[in-house]
């Protein structure tokens, strides 16, 4: 009886410790900025956990099953202990149930231990390595206490069991409040409830950046407490599994970015500590232990170096892989915004591009009238007020690139072959401001959006078609928040649709070489469009050899997020890695659907697969038609 009472005491002491620790942690989270939260999110946690989160975790069945056993067993055991001992029921039946739960948990912990013996490089060690032991202690303690009848329990075994239980409870109760590894359980569940992008749980690919309220002097994230409190909470949810690190193109290229370390640095900033407790791989080239953060001190460069923030290509591969659904890219763009808007600190040639945008409304400093020079002999109609067209073709910055002009000419040829009623913007077209936004220049983006929305309002069209997924993303996903709502379609989707309706008679492609398709991040991950380009290629009679990383999990070409402009040095170039992916599947042609990908992959030095846009492949098939 006295042992059972001791368990009751231990339970309530642990609950109190956890409550105090959580309150302290919550106070840290609440130093962040106010966020619009739906308290109903708390009710949605089970669905979000078992469906949305588990969908990501299940990509690695070993750890998914291990986690189900460990966490499921632990959760069941804790609930049962709360009922049986917390409420002082001491029912033997419940003891058997606790034993069962502890057994399940112990099985799970065994597999955790097994994995931690030879962990993959992406996993963090440090405090995480003690987890199998403390969790095993908890499960063993519970098992001993419930297995051995209390009458026959010797004092020695009782003390040993209680000591094990105490060690396990310390990890759970003390560890969570003190920021130990187990904080992921509580922070993770709360994060699911108060996720900064709740629409993700409704099946929406929520990828648009949120607009800054510049008139309120909101200039992004300078210090940790400038994050939304829900974002600070999300950083605590990180389990340091390193899936983000594994998928990060900048990390692979040896640029000083590691999304996992970035999130852990922000946790260090949240709790006012340095990064020496971090036990994973560092930012390439930047040693661990020399950075320190404070809640209300500037993040760059004391906590995170500027090169880290500027290495990101905003490809969202980390977000796609994160089992805890953390939003790394939002955090990075938030920090970029502060650097850009308050200090004008932007590396490489990005300042030149930004001033070109402000002064000429093009990225390259070109005359706006020159944007459609490539179409001068194609007799392409130019849209004007009072002259309606079904489709408005927006060429984007690629129109100034001589290589990409071939793609645009192919696209126009296809549109003409399909007898589509289309027109181009001509001199009225200005940049969408997408690159400025990724570089943190929210002011330029918003002013471009405002002017573009005015331009579009004066014109009469049904849909916008563009061959640039970056244009597509900003017009389709980011302009609505600023008042511009349009139906925007990518050229691959349009061509697939026209071919499907029979308006575009495609022949069999004369391309006989082995071909692979590279998914643009802004088309695939940002917009979920991976099928239309493949359908179009199938229509052309081309079989796609899929690279190992393709579709929603495709590898970035290195061209997004203004990364070619900030040009942070690494050990190799990202497009070289992507080209090696194509080589690995023996592809001689790499089909693309984006001007950035075209430029990046064309820029690979040495012999490489030929880069052809899907529009070029489709246009070539017109000539092959019987």
């Amino acid at each position, binding site marked *: 009886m006295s042992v059972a009472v001791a368990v009751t005491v231990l339970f309530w002491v642990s609950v109190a410790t956890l409550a105090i620790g959580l309150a302290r942690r919550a106070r840290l989270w609440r130093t962040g900025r106010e966020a619009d939260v739906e308290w109903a999110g708390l009710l949605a946690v089970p669905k979000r956990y078992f469906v949305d989160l588990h969908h990501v975790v299940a990509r690695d069945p070993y750890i998914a099953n291990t986690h189900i056993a460990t966490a499921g067993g632990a959760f069941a055991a804790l609930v049962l202990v709360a009922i049986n001992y917390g409420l002082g029921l001491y029912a033997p039946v419940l003891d058997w149930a606790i034993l069962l739960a502890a057994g399940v948990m112990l099985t799970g912990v065994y597999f955790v231990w097994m994995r931690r013996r030879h962990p993959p490089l992406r996993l963090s060690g440090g405090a995480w390595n003690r987890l199998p032991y403390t969790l095993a202690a908890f499960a063993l303690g519970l098992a001993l206490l419930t297995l051995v009848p209390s009458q026959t329990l010797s004092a020695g075994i009782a003390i040993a069991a209680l000591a094990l239980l105490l060690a396990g409870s310390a990890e759970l109760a003390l560890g969570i409040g003190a920021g130990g590894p187990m904080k992921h359980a509580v922070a993770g569940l709360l994060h699911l409830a108060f996720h900064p992008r709740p629409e993700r749980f409704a099946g929406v690919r929520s990828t648009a950046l949120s607009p800054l309220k510049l008139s309120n002097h909101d200039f992004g994230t300078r210090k940790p407490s400038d994050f939304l409190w829900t974002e600070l909470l999300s950083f605590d949810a990180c389990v340091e599994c390193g899936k983000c690190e594994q998928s990060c193109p900048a990390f692979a290229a040896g640029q000083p970015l590691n999304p996992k370390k970035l999130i852990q640095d922000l946790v260090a900033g949240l709790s006012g500590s340095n990064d020496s407790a971090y036990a994973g791989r560092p930012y390439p080239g930047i040693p661990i232990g020399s950075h320190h953060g404070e809640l209300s001190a500037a993040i760059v460069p004391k906590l995170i170096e500027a090169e880290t923030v500027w290495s990101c290509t905003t490809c969202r591969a980390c977000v796609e892989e994160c089992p805890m659904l953390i939003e790394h890219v939002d955090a990075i763009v938030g920090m970029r915004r502060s650097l*850009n*808007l308050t200090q*004008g600190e932007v590396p490489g040639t990005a300042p030149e591009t930004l001033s070109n945008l*402000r002064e000429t409304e093009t990225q390259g400093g070109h*005359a706006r009238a020159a944007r459609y020079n490539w179409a001068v002999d194609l007799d392409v109609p130019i849209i004007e007020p009072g002259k309606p067209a079904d489709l408005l073709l927006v060429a984007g910055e690629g129109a100034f690139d001589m290589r990409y002009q071939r793609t645009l000419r192919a696209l126009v040829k296809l549109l003409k072959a399909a007898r589509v009623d289309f027109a181009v913007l001509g001199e009225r077209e200005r940049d969408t401001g997408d690159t400025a936004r990724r570089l943190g220049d929210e002011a330029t983006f918003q002013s471009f959006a405002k002017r573009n929305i005015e331009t579009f309002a004066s014109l009469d069209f049904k849909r916008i078609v563009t061959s640039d997924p970056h244009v597509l993303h900003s017009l389709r996903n980011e302009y609505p928040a600023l008042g511009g709502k349009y139906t925007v379609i990518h050229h691959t989707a349009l061509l697939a649709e026209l071919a499907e309706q029979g308006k575009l008679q495609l022949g069999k492609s004369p391309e006989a070489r082995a071909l692979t398709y590279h998914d643009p991040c802004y088309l695939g991950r940002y917009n979920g469009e991976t099928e239309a380009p493949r359908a179009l290629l199938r229509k052309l009679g081309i079989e796609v050899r899929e690279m190992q990383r393709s579709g929603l999990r495709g590898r970035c070409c290195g061209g997004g997020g203004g990364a070619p402009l900030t040009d942070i040095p690494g050990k190799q170039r990202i497009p070289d890695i992507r080209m090696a992916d194509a080589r690995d599947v023996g592809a001689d042609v790499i089909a693309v659907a984006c001007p950035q990908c075209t430029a990046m992959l064309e820029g690979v030095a040495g012999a490489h697969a030929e880069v052809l846009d899907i529009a070029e492949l489709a246009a070539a098939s017109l000539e092959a038609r019987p």
Partner: protein
Amino acid sequence: MSNAFTVAALISAGRHPVSGAPRACRGDAVAMALGRRMAGDGLRVVHAGAAEEPSLQDYLALGAGTIEALPLDSSGDAVATLAAHLKNVDIILTGSNAESGAGSGLLPYALARALARPVAGNVLDARVQKTAGEGWDVEIRQFLPKGQRRRIGCALPLVIAVHPRAPVQLKYAYARRLSGRIERFPETPTDTCVAQPVWTVETASRRPIRLKARETKSGHARMQAAVVAEAKGGIVAFEGSTVDKAQVMLNYLREHRLVDF
């Protein structure tokens, strides 16, 4: 840093060469950045012209802080207005050329003459240092062609025309654009009269450009051409009809990629 000397940078309304959009004149922005490095927060930024000039916003974003806008009187004589306003300033920094107006690059010289000071042109860097006495002088690094540089020392006060390629980094920050101020000064009557250069404006005549075949010979061939005297190559088309002769010319133009059809 408490300055015993005063520094002012002059800024003008810039225009982008392609789009004509108002912007900070690059040379003046560079001069302002150099002035910031010399004088820190003590730098005065002065614009002779309307306070409503849109390009002043760009200078605020580039860190002007407070811009003193001096309205020009009816004569539009910026030199006289500036000379009256800046006679107590030790170092006056200007760009080398304005992007709008005449853009003659004469302003620093005219201003120096009006204030009876020396002027240093094409300046890449300038540092103020204490002299043996209690005074100050400036050490200047000056741009010369073909990568040459010259170091000169000069006593205060003086006018410095900064070279557009002076090694400074321009940092455009939107927040500074919002926090910066433009201070309007009342129109000051000017008595100094500086002779204005007399310009006659005429439209540039457009001359045909002579197409020239690009030299595609190898190094060996060029060496041969230099050491061995031989007749210049080429075809003299005497034979055939006019169409044939035209075809010969067309072939030549195509071969040298002077036409693209």
